[in-house]
């Protein structure tokens, strides 16, 4: 990392008007390397944060963005959120044509103003003002200025100079100043290949970065949020909805969360308490108790998100969840925790980043982080148990790809600590297929198959349980889409939640499965699990290879050959082994009319340099090719 420190003793006074340089507004003055892969370029951006006290934060944001095409329109990013604590003081956008001539001015009142609820939220008191602008031609440039003041200081916006793919940055700066007696901590991430200037004075810190090239998304790469350059910023004293606190470490942070946000919400009504106590009566094993409580929760509550005031940070009271039967992740996790306590089982509220890409809470930076809450049940011997409390479907202890394999903040009455959530290993994420197929003399197929899925492969399928027959029928036709004219005869689904196994029994048929050519018949051997996925090809791969989760498939399929035919020639057995995984295909001739097709396909999770991408892609290509292997039969 190249970090330049400047120690300047004079106080810098920042005066905010429009940026002085005129050439910022013309679209033709951008260096070529910033144009590559870019839909838009941030010409200049500055964020100025003044922490006036632990309970007043003032933010001025100015940004000039040149947009080159329709896909880049969103990168203007002229959006401001506000609520009861955060007020918008000033908001303005100016639009310039390619030559830098101002063509439009949009004032605060002309911004669209809507409620900031998304599809999954019933209510939120957060609102948003955004610019709605139809470009007349490309390229164009927008200067956006906003000024806000906020009584919540728990979240200090990070320095996040590039927030999207296909976006480059000419120059971006960030400054935070703070009063005596308040300390501000920062943490830099992913600036290894960039020139970051850092300037630290006794009451302010500033950063500046220049010439950040655009990156484009690539298959099997780390997620954007994990690899983007970012500086986290936090103050050791902050205020949240009027509650003030002082935090130096995760331990402090956890203590604060437990004592100020969680502890006093545990007002479990007596009726429910005794219901829980009688539910677990006679049970001595804590895990068995917890299973019963989890089932109780799943039967009683559902996920509905409501965010009002401090409720955006603090869970609903337990009594409220008990009465309403719904809540968001905080409310439902906290409710489960209170019920477990009533059952005599200890559990901890845990903050994570949820989503398919395994983003961790920053271990060494105690500050507001995460976007989701789950529950941790500590185990003395063996792996901790993690509960996803917003799902009414997931089995006990199963968190799937939503929160697996990442660092999370576990909050205990004694303080907070970082722990790693459950990782689904390759061998655990197992799909086993056992099938029998009959091929007729006309080339028609009748197949019966049992598919058993575990681990992450369970996660991929458990939702099928609640599909209607019509949708399930379509689902299987899509799963085996390479078989034309397929019709399903029977489908039986068994979701074994105790063993966390998903079992599908399906039978189907299709005419013209194998091709008849004169006296020959060409029979594709892999009926039930053909890999047709090949990772995208890149002329020059830029990002490292990341396989986020591994899996293992084992298929054993007995194929009855048509009576009038015998084997003319068969493909050779295959065995491939490499750092990405392995593939084995073996054909067993049981008797003259029966063959057994054995296949094992393993992909291992891991991080590899970008040079390995082609090898990984070749592996998949080879698997696709082998999965297409055919046996040639000839009339007896």
């Amino acid at each position: 990392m190249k970090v330049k420190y400047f120690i300047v003793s004079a106080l810098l006074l920042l005066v905010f008007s429009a940026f002085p340089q005129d050439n910022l507004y013309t679209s033709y003055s951008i260096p070529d390397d910033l144009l590559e892969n870019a839909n838009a370029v941030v010409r200049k951006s500055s964020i100025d944060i003044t922490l006036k006290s632990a309970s007043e934060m003032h933010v001025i944001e100015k940004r000039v963005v040149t947009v080159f095409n329709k896909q880049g329109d969103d990168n203007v990013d002229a959006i401001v959120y506000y609520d009861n604590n955060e007020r918008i003081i000033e908001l303005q956008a100016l639009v310039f044509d390619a030559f830098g001539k101002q063509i439009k001015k949009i004032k605060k009142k002309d911004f669209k103003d809507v409620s900031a609820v998304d599809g999954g939220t019933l209510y939120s008191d957060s609102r948003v003002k955004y610019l709605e602008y139809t470009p007349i031609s490309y390229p164009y440039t927008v200067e956006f200025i906003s000024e806000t003041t906020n009584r919540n200081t728990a979240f200090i916006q990070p320095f996040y100079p590039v927030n999207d793919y296909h976006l480059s940055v000419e120059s971006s700066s960030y400054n935070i100043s703070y009063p005596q007696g308040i300390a501000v901590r920062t943490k830099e991430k992913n600036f290894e290949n960039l020139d970051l200037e850092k300037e630290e004075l006794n009451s302010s810190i500033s950063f500046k970065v220049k010439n950040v090239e655009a990156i484009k998304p690539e298959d099997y790469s780390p997620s954007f949020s994990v690899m983007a350059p970012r500086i986290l910023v936090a103050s050791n004293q902050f205020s949240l909805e009027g509650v003030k606190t002082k935090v130096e470490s995760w331990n402090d942070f956890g203590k604060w969360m437990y004592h100020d946000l969680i502890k006093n919400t545990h007002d479990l009504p007596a009726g429910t308490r005794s219901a829980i106590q009688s539910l677990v009566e006679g049970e001595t094993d804590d895990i068995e108790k917890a299973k019963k409580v989890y089932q109780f929760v799943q039967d009683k509550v559902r996920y509905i998100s409501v965010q009002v005031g401090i409720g955006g940070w603090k869970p609903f009271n337990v009594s409220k969840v008990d009465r309403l039967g719904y809540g968001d992740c905080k409310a439902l996790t906290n409710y489960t925790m209170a019920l477990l306590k009533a059952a005599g089982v200890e559990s901890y509220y845990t903050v994570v980043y949820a989503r398919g890409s395994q983003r961790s809470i920053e271990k060494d930076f105690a500050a507001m982080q995460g976007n989701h809450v789950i529950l941790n049940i500590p185990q003395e011997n063996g792996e901790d148990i993690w509960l996803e409390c917003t799902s009414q479907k997931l089995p006990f202890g199963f968190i799937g790809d939503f929160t697996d394999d990442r660092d999370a903040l576990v909050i205990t009455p004694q303080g907070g600590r970082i722990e790693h959530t459950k990782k689904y290993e390759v061998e655990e994420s197992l799909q086993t297929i056992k099938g029998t197929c009959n091929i007729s003399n006309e080339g028609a197929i009748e197949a019966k198959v049992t598919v058993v899925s575990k681990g992450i492969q369970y996660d991929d399928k458990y939702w099928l349980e609640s599909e209607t027959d019509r949708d399930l029928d379509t689902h299987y036709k899509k799963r085996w889409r390479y078989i034309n004219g397929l019709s399903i005869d029977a489908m039986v689904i068994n979701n074994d939640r105790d063993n966390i196994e998903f079992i599908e029994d399906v039978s189907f048929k299709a005419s013209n499965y194998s091709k008849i050519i004169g006296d020959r018949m060409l029979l594709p051997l892999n009926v039930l699990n053909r890999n047709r996925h090949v990772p995208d090809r890149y002329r020059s791969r830029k990002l490292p290879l990341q396989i986020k989760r591994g899996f293992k498939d084992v298929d054993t399929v007995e194929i009855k050959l048509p009576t009038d035919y015998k084997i003319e020639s068969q493909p050779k057995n295959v065995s491939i082994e490499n750092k990405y995984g392995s593939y084995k295909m073996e054909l067993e001739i049981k008797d003259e009319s029966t063959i057994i097709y054995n296949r094992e396909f393993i992909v291992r999770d891991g991080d590899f340099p970008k040079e390995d991408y082609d090898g990984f892609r070749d592996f998949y290509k080879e698997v696709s090719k082998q999965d297409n292997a055919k046996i040639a039969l000839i009339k007896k």
Partner: protein
Amino acid sequence: MRILTMVLSLCFVASAFSQNYKFGKVSKEELEETVCSIDSTANAAYLYKYRKSYFEYIQGEGFVLKTEIQERIKLYNQEGFDYATEQIRLYKGHGGSEEKVSQIKAYTYNLENGKIIESKLNKSDIFKSKASKYTNEVKFTMPNLKPSSVIEYKYEISSPFLSNVDEFIFQHNIPVKKLEARFDVPEYFNFKVNIKGFLSVVPKVENERGSITFNNKTRTSSGQGLSAVTRTNYSTSKVDFNKQVNTYSLENVPALRDEPYVNSINNYRSSVKYELSYTKFPNATIETYSTTWEDVVKRVYKSSSFGEELKKTAYFQKDIDALISSVSDPAERVVLIFDFVKSQVKWNGYYGFYADDVRKAYKDHVGNSGDINLMLTAMLRHAGLNANPVLVSTRTHGIPLFPTREGFNYVVTWVKLPDGSVTLLDATNKYSVPNVLPFRVLNWQGRIVAKNGGSGLIDLYPKTKSKNAMNMMVKIDEEGTLEGSFRSVRTNHRALSFRNSYNGADKDAYLEKLENRYNGIEISDYEVKNDKELLKPIIESYKFVKESQADIIGDKMYFSPLFYLKTSENPFKLEKREFPIDFGYPSITSHRVTINIPDGYKIESIPEAAAIRLPDNLGSFQFKILSRGNTIQVSVTSQINESIISPIHYEALKEYFNTFIRKEAEQIVLTKA
């Protein structure tokens, strides 16, 4: 057998009688039901759905439109919980007038140990928010849900927007067991009723008497000076009137389920829409809104945002005069003006047939569909052409079955040349050309609005087939690697959709995407011709290498003649189909492939030629193949001749796809010589 029928019908009567639809009278039977009796796949069902809309006279304010809603919903499982959240959208006008909701009452009912337990929705759990400038939103979700819960709520909406009676919707994505609806219309209002959907829904219409009571207050003073007494007299007067009462009563309405290739499922949803045709208040003249298509067109034409905007010419006169001064051919003038509008004014994404302000749109270079196409029409007229606007309902908006203004949401331009040829234009899309309208517009018929306010219909589905003709010259080697060149010619909508995704995209990224669409084919010498010359077909060509295109087993090679271009998946997967299949436009797709086989091999067999046809000349498929020496020539053509196909041909269409997919997959066999 007879006895059984008797018993069954008795049961039915008995159970029908046990239903009590009064608010709060939820029965044990309703709570005990675990599977919906009329649809076993339903996650939830309306047990009872009630709506009454009527006009109430409020002294000092006049009439207000009131709507009472009462709904009882059974939730059979957790998937059904989605139906336990109610969202009430309330409109706000410009001048502070707005819809209001009141009297919200809601309960969840559960059966616990044989007892009915009710949970009330608290006021504090009802959320109000300002969704946008013109909408408020009231939302609530029901407490304490369990699979098998019954929820019930009711509320009242009071609206000052008298001509805007919300659609009565009779069919939902879940079944409805019992539905009652009622609309009371005082004699001063006359509404037109528009019924749509696949169910037969007929209102019962009766007349009733209604009355309005006015409270009058008069003050009188008597006496003088200090002894004066002021007295207030209260009196009432009553005005009687007739009202028309429309009632609907439906039972066991099936759920409406979406199907692929349906332009908008709402076209098939059963509903009734009341549209105000005129008002006639005492001592006032008739004010018409709409009754026939002619009225609709006249009203639209008369409105200031349409007819007036169409008349304005001053803002563009100078520019247009200069533009066309040297061109006198009418057809050329059309093209010039059309291109001018496309380059000058960008569409802001808003639909509508009214203009916001054509002059402003022209000046700011941005407008809605009304601004742009009315401006275009006015300019064409100014240039001496016979041009008219055409009202359109876009694909997602549904089919305009009845004469209403709300049936339309968009406008395009019609122009007739002196030679009698007719052209449709839409300047909202940069790549649209005369008679090739954006896909959103291809929906049934549009209504031409003539200068005198007269109207006529015009078919919006294109007549000309959109073509994609592909040519390939390839060489396959003994490893199964394919090398060759590809060239395709696209016309009309195929060209339009190509330009929409290609023009303006990053060329490298586009190419990478194309390569990955065919699982990593390697492309070189990629070239696109006429991407900017909109009146010419798109010509795309490239050279390529693609591995593993043949099965090599023993001394034989097997491959299908279209290689990676063959159709591999039937888009029609459902066993049954209820609604028409809407392709949007007729099309023709052809492949001509010349294959050179590797040295040392000879052709052992090739598939047979074949032809299949859809009934009623809806489409056809042709497969021809020839081999000569080391070369094989294949020609495959498929065409769909209609934009929209009736569901009675679904089976045939599905089988047609199956057959041609099978045919395209047939193999060529080569043997080592």
